[in-house]
């Protein structure tokens, strides 16, 4: 009898894994292999001139080259500023919207759907749209600001070094907020009503209820969301490429644009590979935290 049960559980285990095999295969071929290939690439001095022969093994030379390249360190810093600003903006706006939409009001469903349209737009479309909105002489934002009397002269948002980065951050927040909003809203709706009822009876103000009930209960969700958000924002390429191409000069050159420039414009594949490995490392550290958080949440 016991033997039989253990066989069954073994069979179950096997079935469980069998379901995962297609995904594992997919991931191995399309994701693990390229990553490993990329890591190997980063130790070779591959350029346009020698890529057909494979290039020589150069050890850590590519890493030394990028770490001593001020353009790379600046790009990493720009990436961090970009990512953290985007996460903060996305979270604040997304959370506010989620709180608003938790209350029932007419047309809430339709509006929620409309927010998702923004999220579904390809980044190339959003980028082009944003370029038009922010254009200095013909853009609607300048027109609006001027009509309302906020500014005297048109602002060249994307072609001034000081405003280019904030502008692309703003645009990326616009693209990313709906994701935060929907995720947080689903979290909010699953919070137990009893807590709020009890708090109400105890005479808690809405702000106190938010601070002492909503925030603590939502904390694990927010943490997970922030980590996902970091990984997504850290590797945004298309939106920036369309909006500024990394310019003016290098004001919006984030790490992915630097990598693209090295690999596919200057064809220094080894250098590009090393730079993407550094990026991978940053994201992996975050991924480990993400996994730990996921397990914690699972154990709750």
């Amino acid at each position: 009898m016991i033997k039989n049960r253990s066989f069954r559980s073994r069979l179950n285990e096997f079935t469980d894994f069998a379901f995962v095999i297609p995904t594992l295969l997919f991931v191995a071929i399309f994701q693990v292999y390229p990553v490993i290939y990329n890591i190997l690439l980063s130790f070779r001095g591959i350029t346009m001139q020698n890529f057909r022969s494979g290039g020589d093994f150069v050890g850590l030379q590519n890493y030394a080259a990028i770490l001593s390249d001020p353009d790379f360190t600046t790009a990493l810093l720009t990436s961090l500023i970009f990512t953290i600003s985007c996460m903060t903006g996305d979270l604040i706006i997304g959370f506010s919207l989620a709180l608003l939409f938790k209350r029932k009001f007419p047309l809430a469903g339709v509006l929620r759907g409309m927010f998702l349209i923004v999220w579904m737009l390809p980044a190339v479309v959003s980028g082009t749209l944003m370029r038009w909105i922010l254009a200095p002489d013909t853009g609607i934002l300048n027109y609006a600001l001027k009509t309302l009397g906020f500014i005297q002269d048109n602002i060249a948002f994307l072609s001034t070094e000081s405003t280019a980065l904030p502008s692309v951050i703003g645009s990326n927040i616009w693209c990313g907020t709906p994701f935060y909003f929907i995720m947080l809203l689903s979290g909010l709706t699953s919070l137990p009503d009893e807590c709020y009822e009890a708090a109400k009876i105890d005479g808690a103000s809405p702000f106190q209820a938010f601070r002492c009930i909503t925030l603590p209960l939502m904390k694990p969700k927010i943490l997970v969301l922030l980590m996902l958000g970091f990984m997504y924002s850290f590797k945004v390429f298309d939106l920036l490429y369309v909006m500024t191409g990394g310019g003016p000069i290098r004001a919006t050159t984030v790490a992915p644009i630097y990598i693209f420039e090295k690999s596919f414009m200057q064809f220094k594949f080894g250098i590009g590979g090393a730079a993407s490995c550094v990026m991978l490392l940053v994201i992996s550290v975050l991924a480990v935290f993400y996994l730990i958080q996921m397990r914690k949440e699972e154990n709750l």
Partner: protein
Amino acid sequence: MKKALIIVLSLCMIFSVTACGGTSGTTPAAPAQPAASSTQAAEAAKPAESAVEAEPTLITFWDWYDAEEPRFFDAIDDYKALNPHITVERTTITRNDFDSKVVRAAAANQLPDIFINSISRFQAWADAGIGADITDLVDQYGAKENYFASSLEPLTWQGKLHGLPMYNNVWMLYYNMDMFEQKGVTEVPATWEEFRAACEKTVDKANGIYGAALTGNKSEEGSVNFLYWLWQADADLYDLRSDNSKSAFSMIQNLVKDGLVSGDMLNWNQADSFQQFLSGRAAMTLNGSWQLGPLNDATFNWGMAELPVGKKQHGIMGGEGIGISTDCTHPEEALKFILFMHEPDNYLKYKLNSGGNLAPIPAVNEKDVIKSNTKISECAATLAYCKTRAYGPNYPEISSILQEAVQSNILGNNIDEIVDTAAAKIEPLLPPR
């Protein structure tokens, strides 16, 4: 058990998040399959008797034109009718994906037999072993003499020919005649001073009209549109620190500083700056000869002239070439197909010069169709003093350094510092003169 599953699945997900950032910035787009035309289908239906004696040969051909564009399909069909044993298979890839796709194909030894590219890439590709040395083959057919020597120059690397030119284009000054008349500009600007003066007269800040729309975005286009200024100043990338070179930088910087040209030019590619001109937001633009096509839609009277001259008259020649790859196992057949397209009558029939482009083949330019087109003839005449970007295999990197210098200049930074920084980076990359 459940935990193990969750960890495995989470790992999968994290890989899917990181892998995209880790390997490259772009996802390779699948090349659009060439639409099989009905004529091709008809060809295939024909009995295969005629092909008995010659061995069937497949020539693969990659280009970046619209997949629907008939000109190459016509050439392919006609060639097949004449040589039933040869099939040319065309694949179109978008221009943005083209280079990386070719490079990947090269790494896998799966290059197409023939490919198109900008003439500015050929030296780098020759050096990379992508484009085959076709000097002897071309000589064998005595075909070298069919082309302008200047058109062959950018396709030549270390004395060896690595491609044939498809077409060339040049940069010209386009001006809005109506605006010139209104603002009292009587002479078409022929020099830098006159160009600036015309800008000063036509600029109309209140209505958002600039003197000229220029290109300075962070791409190859930004480099091209600065190089002719640099050359006109009688300078070159070899002497960026010279006073002549600085005068080219300050010319543009002052145009922007004084509000004669929009500083937003650093986000404009050539199509963007041309659009500014076409929509009446700029009185002039310096742009490619291919804009002659879109100019038919202009709602105002326009004129075209040579680029305003600085210290020395120079122009810049661009264009596209066609190369045979090192993976091609039947280069002679491939070359024959190219030469077939380049026969003067065929060249015109397949409109290889369509849209304001110039034929690199003197015999084509002798044809009445071309001679009677005054605008095209005017453009072609400038080829006499045009230079090409022949800066060796490091040009892509040189270009990206130059782009940053151009942008920094538009933003009004110190010119001495800009040229010093750029020169220090560019000089070691230039081939010896």
